[in-house]
Structures are given as C-alpha cells and as structure tokens.
C-alpha cells in the first residue's frame, strides 16, 4: 500500500510530557506500521478547545483554528489535516463549516490572519485519525501489520461525545457507533458491544469546574464497563481518557469505591497488536496500567506465526 501523507495537528495535550503524550507515542508507532507519514504543522497553535467560549468570541475562536489551517496549506499543500484529539478535530470541523458557509466570517478571519502574515484558502480538509483508519485505510488493511492478536482481551469501546456528535464518523450512528468495537475485533480482541455507556459524556472540560457532577458520570462509565466484564476501556479522545482514567482514584477516595479500570487509546491497542513493546505503545503512560495489555505487549512472537 502506497505511503499516505498527512498534515498532523497533535494538539496541546499530546505534546511531550503532556497529559496525552502516550497517545502520541502510540499513534506514531501505529502509523509507522501502517506506512502513514504524519508531518506536524509547523508552529501550530492551540485550537481553543470547546471551553474558551466565554472569553473568546466566535470569530476569535475561528481565527485561532484558521491559523493552523493556513499554516498547513502553506507548508503542506494538498495534504489533509489530521488531528488525534476529538476536541481539536471538532473545533476544526466547526470552523471549516462556518467559514465555508459565511463569506463575511471568512473575510473577517483572513483580515485577522493577515496580521500574522497568513491567508486561509479553505482548501485543507479536517480529519480525525479514526477517519483516516476507517476511511483511508480500512479494517482489512489494518489487519496486515498485525503480529499478534489481542485474543481474550475484553474491551469496552468508549466513544464519548466529540468524535461522535455532531459530525461523527461517516456511516456511524450517534446512539450506537460501532467503529471502536470493529477496531477491537479487527485486532482480535473481544468487543463488549452491549456496553451502554458508549456515548455517555464524561463531563469534558467541566471535569475541572464541576468535579462532583462529572465524577458521577465517570463512575457510571467505569462501573458499566465492569458490569460487562471489561478488562479495559478503549477511547479515541484524550480528554475522555484523562477524565475517565485519572479521576477513578478521586472517586474511590470520596465514595469508597474500588475502581481501577485501565483506559487506553485505540492506537495503543493497535501498537501492541503490531508488535510494539510497552514503551512504543505508550503503556508506560498509564496511570492505571492494563495488566492484560502489558502481558500481550511483553509476549514474544515466534517468527513462524508472523
């Protein structure tokens, strides 16, 4: 399969020693095996996420994102922009739709971008890494680099909100998106398709501002995974991952529960299935380590089976 090239938008949390740095590590391993080349957008800036609305007006927020678009168009012409973070991707999609729809918004945006010596031509497409996997590569192709199966691993696919609504992945439904389950099965794992907290909101940024309310959500999400016999939760979103993983200890402390459900990225599953070791799969970045995944990662694969 020919090399695929994308302009890469990592987003703040994925940076070195960022809260989702292990996501990036696993994505790099995964992409290498899939022969996908990600070139970070030079000097990219924060997208503003979905929380900056109070401080920043609509235009200002669009301008922030448009700068990244403009840089991508300038330095990596013709390449789709790929984001790994749900919020970054969603923000990008919204900005693109809005600017495509409103000529005034577009004019205003470029007027502002001019100050940074940039111009947005509305060419670049905004994609999520999952879209690249599902649409550009496909499940069959994803199997090819596999050297080991996640056989026996019971995994709850937690899609969350922002890769799912309002845009979602083409062909998937809002209430019951299946791509994570398909990914898990493709990697040989056992997808817990009946997991009903699949698209429940973890509280997003409000995990910071409304911890009690969010932690109630998180508890539901984790406990339901336990109910379905999950050994780990898999997610495509850094904020979901962080919220659902790191607040479990808080919930245990406050509510006397004993939650310790590992929460990993799809890319980590794939990195492992593709033969990556714990480090290459960013498993060392787990606050709640996944024994199961560590074991599989540690398994040495006899060449024969390969």
């Amino acid at each position, binding site marked *: 399969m020919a090399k695929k090239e994308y302009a890469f938008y990592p987003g703040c949390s994925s940076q070195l020693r960022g809260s989702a740095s292990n996501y990036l590590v696993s994505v790099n391993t995964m992409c290498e095996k899939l022969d996908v080349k990600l070139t970070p957008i030079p000097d990219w800036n924060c997208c503003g996420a979905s929380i900056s609305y109070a401080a920043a007006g609509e*235009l200002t927020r669009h301008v922030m994102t448009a700068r990244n678009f403009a840089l991508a168009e300038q330095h990596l012409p013709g390449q789709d922009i790929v984001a790994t973070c749900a919020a970054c991707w969603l923000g990008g999609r919204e900005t693109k739709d809005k600017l495509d729809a409103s000529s005034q918004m577009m004019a205003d945006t470029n*007027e502002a971008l001019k100050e940074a010596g940039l111009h947005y031509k509305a060419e670049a497409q905004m994609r999520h890494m999952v879209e690249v996997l599902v649409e550009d590569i496909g499940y069959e192709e994803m199997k090819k680099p596999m050297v080991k199966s996640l056989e026996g691993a019971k995994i709850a696919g937690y899609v969350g909100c922002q890769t799912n609504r309002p845009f979602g992945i083409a062909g998937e439904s809002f209430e019951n998106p299946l791509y994570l389950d398909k990914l898990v099965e493709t990697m040989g794992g056992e997808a817990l398709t009946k997991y009903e907290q699949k698209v429940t909101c973890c509280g997003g940024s409000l995990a910071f501002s409304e911890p009690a309310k969010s932690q109630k959500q998180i508890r539901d999400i984790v406990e339901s995974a336990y109910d379905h016999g999950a050994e780990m939760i898999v997610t495509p979103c850094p904020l979901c991952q962080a919220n659902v993983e790191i607040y479990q200890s808080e919930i245990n402390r406050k509510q006397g529960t004993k939650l310790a459900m590992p929460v990993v990225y799809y890319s980590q599953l794939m990195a492992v299935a593709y033969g990556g070791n714990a480090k290459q799969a960013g498993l060392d970045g787990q606050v709640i380590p996944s024994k199961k995944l560590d074991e599989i990662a540690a398994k040495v694969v006899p060449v024969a089976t390969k």
Partner: protein
Amino acid sequence: MGNMTELNEQALAKYRNSFLHEVEERVEEGDWVKMCMQCGVCAGSCTFGPHWEHSPQKIFMMIRAGKREEVLRSDSMWMCTSCYNCVVRCPRKLPITQIMHGLAQYAHRLGVAPKMQPTRDLSLIFWNNCIKTGRVNELRFTLSLYFKDGLMAGIRQALSMQSIALALLMAKRLNPLEFFKGHECKDKAGIHRMLKKAQEIESRRQGAHK
C-alpha cells in the same frame, strides 16, 4: 468587557420580541432561538440536565417571554459540557450547544454572568493560558485553576489532588518544568496581533447591531 449601554439595558416588556431580537443579533446562533417548538428533547438528553435550573428549551421560551435578567443571570447554560447530544436529537436541528455557549458568553460580555461561576473561570483561565504562548501550559493551567479562589483554597485543592498530580508525574504526563517554561509557538507576536485584530473586528460587528 461589555459597555455601559448594554449593562444598563432596562427591563423589557413581556413577550415583546426585543430580547429575542437582541439575542438574534448579539448571540452566537441566536437567530435559531425562534425555531424551537418546545418538545423538550434537548432537556431530556442533557448530560448535566438535572443540574440545570432552566433547560435549553425553557430558556428559549424565556427569551421569547422577554425574561432577560433571569436568562442572562442564570448559570444554566454554564452547565453545558459540549456533548452535542441535544443538537443531534433536536427535531428542528437547532445548534443548541453553540446557542448555550453564545448566551453564556453574551452574559459574561455584559458582566451579568453569575460571579464565582467555576466554568466561566475555567474558560477564562484556559483562554488566557493558551493565547499567552499560543499553546496550553497544562501545569500552569491546572495551578491557576486551583489558586483562582486565593492561596489557601488553592493549596487545599492542590493537596487534595496531589495523588493525581503525582500519578501523572510518574506516568510522565505532567511536567513540573512547565512551570518555568512550557511548549510555545514561535510566532507569539503574530498570534497576539491576529487575536487583537479579531477582537477588534468582533466588537465592530457587535457595535454594528446597536
């Protein structure tokens, strides 16, 4: 932000459309408010629904009823987690999430948003943090969140969360050095000029509606 004339806007006549018009002109996606048919599916689909004093659909009705103060001073729209559940279920396809954000921002702009609204503070802190260097400094962001209500409160918060911080540290997902210098964009100056311009245009546009 928010200028005096807006602040001093006097109470509006009931069910006369002045507040509705105000929202249509000055609130992001505000011109959708009139399209609501009061089915309530948004209210039932909301993540933090139980914590909303007024549901989105009710807020839309209150806007039509001219309840300006009650709406703008409410903390309901600050409960929005941007999960977009309401948006995809709305039979009239209203961009409810954006309208809630828009109303919150408008209230903040007018200076009538509830004081000590944690999500509002979060929003401000996040924004200021990310535009400083063009990228988020997660450590400083977290700290300033803790210390927003003063030193003691901050220390208490920080202590309560230290286990988590430690865990993240161990997992190499939190960098203490970020306190001194985190990731940042090269063209900070450009970004600042750009944002200044954007805000300029924005207030010009808002002004145009007065």
